[in-house]
């Protein structure tokens, strides 16, 4: 019996009908389209941006993903082996508190990050103490942080070191707000990439009132404001 042992039995063995003919043509058209798409993906365009990271080479996406000036950009658009991840720009953030509640993770991937090099090591830290704190002690009712995630450690008179316990931080940004308004602004919110699952569309990004979120290259995943601006 012909074909009994052959698993891949198709109508190749049957006479070709007109229907199959049309099918074949359309199939080849689609294969060609997908091949072109694949081709643009693999070949990519040559970077023409004079100060671009890939100038003269195949585009792998600029570090800042700026608008591309290549005349071929309509033909081949930037494709990158370089991945992107979500990050929030602290310069735009208004500490609305949605970072704490809008992440798809049960406890937000956004945490408060302390840039020590900008910190004043103040005895009265605006990020740490409630405005009406009775005494400058670490008593819970004195603290700004709802979960007590900020640790205060005496260094020497009058300096105190503040560190964030990220396992407790929920990313609400209350400390960030007051430190920014009255202190040096050394506390900022950032998406922590060891926690973030890198959603195709970040759930916080679409709810952020300030439009602070954007895709950044995965090899430079943080937007710390450089300390030089502060000194």
């Amino acid at each position, binding site marked *: 019996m012909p074909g009994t042992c052959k698993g891949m039995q198709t109508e190749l063995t049957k006479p070709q009908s007109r229907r199959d003919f049309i*099918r074949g043509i359309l199939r080849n058209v689609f294969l060609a389209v997908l091949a072109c798409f694949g081709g643009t993906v693999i070949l990519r365009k040559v970077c023409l941006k004079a100060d671009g990271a890939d100038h003269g080479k195949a585009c792998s996406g600029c570090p800042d993903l700026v608008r591309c000036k290549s005349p071929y950009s309509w033909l081949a658009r930037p494709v990158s082996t370089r991945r992107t991840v979500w990050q929030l720009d602290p310069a735009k953030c208004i500490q609305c508190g949605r970072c704490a509640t809008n992440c798809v993770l049960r406890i937000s991937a956004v945490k408060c990050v302390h840039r020590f090099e900008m910190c004043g090591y103040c005895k009265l830290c605006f990020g740490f103490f409630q405005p009406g704190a009775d005494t400058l002690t670490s008593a819970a009712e004195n603290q700004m942080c709802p979960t007590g995630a900020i640790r205060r450690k005496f260094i020497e008179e009058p300096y105190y070191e503040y560190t964030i316990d990220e396992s407790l931080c929920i990313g609400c940004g209350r400390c960030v707000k007051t430190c920014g*308004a009255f202190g040096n602004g050394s506390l900022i919110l950032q998406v922590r990439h060891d926690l973030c699952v890198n959603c*195709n569309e970040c759930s916080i990004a679409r709810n952020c009132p300030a439009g602070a979120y954007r895709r950044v290259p995965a090899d430079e995943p943080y937007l710390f404001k450089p300390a030089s601006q502060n*000194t």
Partner: protein
Amino acid sequence: MRKILVMLFLLVSTLTCFAENRFPKPQFEKGYTLPETTAPGPRSILLESVDVVVLLAALSLATWLVLKKRSRRGVFLLTIFSVIYFGFWKKGCICSIGAIQNVTLWLFDNQYVLPLSAAAYFILPLVFALLFGRVFCAAVCPLGTIQDLMILFPVKVPSCLAQILKLIPYVYLGLGALFAATGTAFVICRLDPFVPIFRLSGKLPILMTGIVLLLIGIFVARPYCRFLCPFSVLLNWMSKLSKWHATITPDECVKCRLCEKSCPFDAIQIPNINQVAEPRISGVHRLIMLLILLPFLAIGGGWAGSRLDVVLARENPTVRLAEAIQQNDQSELKLMVFEKEAFDGSGMKKEDLYVQAHTLRNKFRKGGWFMGGFLGVVFGCSLIGVSIKRTRDSYEPDRGACLSCARCFMSCPKEHQRIKKLNQVNC
């Protein structure tokens, strides 16, 4: 002192200045080393490439299992692997269904850089569907496979109802592409019902939808795949053209009717050769009428789509903000307070915002024409599809709807013969 502090707080609490050097850097007397600001990196690029390789391997394996080996057991094992790997381990993102939007955004916005992995996730299943049918759906897609494991007591969906429900994916695809092309949102990701299950956390309404769909899936096999999935539209088209598609029988169909009820997705078409054929001329008439109707449906659909611009554009945050600010100006009612605060802080002019919103609405109007026209054509084509009766002389899977799951194979007596032969050869 404290009073002053409180007052200060009240005064300036709405105002957020960023990073001012109000307090000088301390001069420590004792040796104190500044702690490093930690910056844990994301998942490595290597793992991302591994994902693509695994996808390719899984697709090839699925093809081999369905077309060559004809083994339901193999497909089932691969299904379990895919749920675990692409679902629970990879936690969903990025998947082929969502990648539609990445590709669309990339086509329309030359600022957006398409990650290679997204391109691969989009293109590979389609190429495989063009060649071998929907093997991706059979055992690779995490969303499909998790539903596949729930099929316990499949019932037949009444075919007229199924015909109507089958149009939903087209609408979903149209809207998803429109929102992605305008850079508004990735709605397909937002409404993905199973990703919260893979992540074991997520927004409650979506999580509930996922669970409900899985429960429905016990009776109505793979409800998301058949009546919602936007990627299924593309796969359906590609699979219709496939070169080597799975067949129910390994040999010639003997019309024993044994496979008739074996497909949980109602994808098996029964032969209609013995039915009384209507006179050819009336069929041709109907076809001509429908073909004349088609352009009208397209234009009507396009017009209706373009009318939706204002409503659809409201999904865009910029448009929403512009509308809220306009309303705030007119009445006392305060909308989107945080958004407004951020806008005021950004120093952007209201007029610029309104111009932006206007451009976006125009984009939606143009896009609406395309989307509506597309839906009109789809509707017309599905009418034509229903009205044309093609003669079929054997039991065949509907190439578009068949998910190549291999369930029907074992119901065919010829398949049993084949296996017996195979065993004899092996002995």
